[in-house]
């Protein structure tokens, strides 16, 4: 009873709180990083060095007036932000944050659950997230959001194919579909899959950028295009949900990338005994550190690269990334059979 109900509930509460707090502070981090790249300081007024800026943002968004367009479809209009946010959060149920920890005499694994189709679960939940975007644009009953949402969802489903193909080649390397199994497979192989599958990592990273609508693929939500994209008609807390869902998706892609390519919670050189002093650092700190590095690269790219035009974006997805990913699967399969 305790194992099956109470402990997972506590873990869920901790993970949800941690994710939501990190998402709000990601906003501040992004503004700071972009500011430093542009040789300025970013938010500095609210709190010391601008640390309380997310609190101010949250209060502002919550007290804003909640407008629903007159002829919009009210149920779908209200449900769309929820449909975008929920998949971003429930993916955290299968991500392993660390190996094991000893508390109150029990050995508690640091993941909420480990299903044997974990990787497919993540991909399928991500494909549900597309609905929120389509429905947000449609239910606004207005031309610009509808066209922007069709563009955004077309972008998402195109890059989903490329990302899923890279995950297939990873499954060939790891031999399992469960996320915890991937970390163990990297431990046994002695090498992070980043070095075994560099092409897959590059394709996954670019696909992850496009899946989360991040620059340079953020055409659907840029203010200069289509008057603000699919969340034009949303204001107040509902807009905040879209905003937060995007950052939550970023954290999801980083966490999944870290688990699959960067060894999850393993320390660097996990099989080398001479470096065992690195084990003093707990496994979840390694995981969080690697995720943070991943996230920082996301922000760095946003600050640096210009935006892709829509047809360039679709050409890149269909004509470049998908053939490369499929070729990667074929080569990986051939090498696994021959070696």
């Amino acid at each position, binding site marked *: 009873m305790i194992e099956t109900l109470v402990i997972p509930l506590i873990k869920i509460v901790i993970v949800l709180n941690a994710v939501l707090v990190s998402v709000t502070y990601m906003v501040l981090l992004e503004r700071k990083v972009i500011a430093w790249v542009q040789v300025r300081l970013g938010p500095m007024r609210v709190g010391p060095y601008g640390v309380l800026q997310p609190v101010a943002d949250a209060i502002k968004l919550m007290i804003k007036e909640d407008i629903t367009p007159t002829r919009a*479809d009210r149920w779908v209009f209200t449900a769309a932000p929820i449909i975008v946010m929920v998949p971003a959060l429930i993916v955290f149920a299968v991500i392993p944050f660390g190996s094991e920890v000893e508390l109150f005499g029990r050995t508690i694994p640091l993941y909420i659950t480990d299903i044997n*189709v974990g990787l*497919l679960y993540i991909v399928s939940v991500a*494909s549900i997230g597309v609905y929120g975007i*389509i429905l947000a644009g449609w239910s606004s009953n207005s031309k610009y959001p509808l066209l922007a949402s069709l563009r955004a969802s077309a972008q998402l489903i195109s890059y989903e194919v490329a990302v899923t193909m890279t995950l297939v080649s990873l499954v060939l390397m790891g031999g399992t579909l469960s996320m915890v199994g991937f970390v163990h497979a990297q431990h046994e192989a002695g090498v992070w899959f980043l070095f075994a599958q560099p092409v897959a990592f590059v394709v996954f990273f670019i696909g992850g950028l496009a899946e989360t609508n991040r620059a340079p693929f953020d055409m659907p939500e840029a203010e200069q295009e289509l008057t603000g994209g699919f969340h034009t008609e949303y204001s107040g807390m509902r807009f905040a949900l879209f905003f937060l869902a995007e950052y939550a998706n970023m954290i999801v892609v980083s966490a999944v990338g870290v688990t699959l390519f960067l060894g999850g919670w393993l320390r660097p050189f996990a099989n080398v005994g001479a470096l065992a002093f690195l084990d003093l650092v707990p496994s979840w700190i390694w995981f969080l550190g690697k995720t943070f590095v991943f996230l920082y690269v996301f922000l760095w790219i946003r600050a640096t690269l210009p935006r892709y035009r829509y047809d360039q974006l679709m050409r890149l997805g269909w004509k470049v990334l998908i053939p490369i990913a499929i070729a990667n699967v074929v080569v990986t399969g051939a090498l696994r059979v021959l070696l």
Partner: protein
Amino acid sequence: MGEAIAFYTLAALILGFAVLVVSAKSTVHSVLFLVLTFLFVAALYVTLQAEFLAVIQVLVYAGGIVVLYLFVVMLVNLKRQPETHADPHRRSRLGLALSGLVLAELAAIAMYGSASSPAASGAASAPEVTAMGGNVEQVGWLLYTDYLIPFELASMLLLVAMIGAIVLAKREL
């Protein structure tokens, strides 16, 4: 006991949302109810120990096919109003009567036929398949040994369907 609660809840939800699919006034609402039906069918597969099929159901059906339906509905709805109920009631009453008859017949067959259920043993591949690990390994093993040719044919079918859909929907070749 828990299994019974799960089954009856999921069955009620599946049938409820299926009825809403067929009877909703706005096409987009129909599509949304279809997504919910598929999600609950996937949950039913999980209770039947078919996890791989459950995630494939969500990934392919709910996350792929219905997105396609939603796109087409929106492209078609751009100029027209949502479909109003222009059905003559005579046709719907006749349809309901006939379907009720067939359903009663199927129920009778199911309940009285199960009294003498054939205790058929599984296919010859059952013993070695269950020696595999989980559900995914079992399905994969069957797909790549006994049913390899249907597997390849299915991929050919999907390729042909993809080309056909592109050719049909393009504006100019």
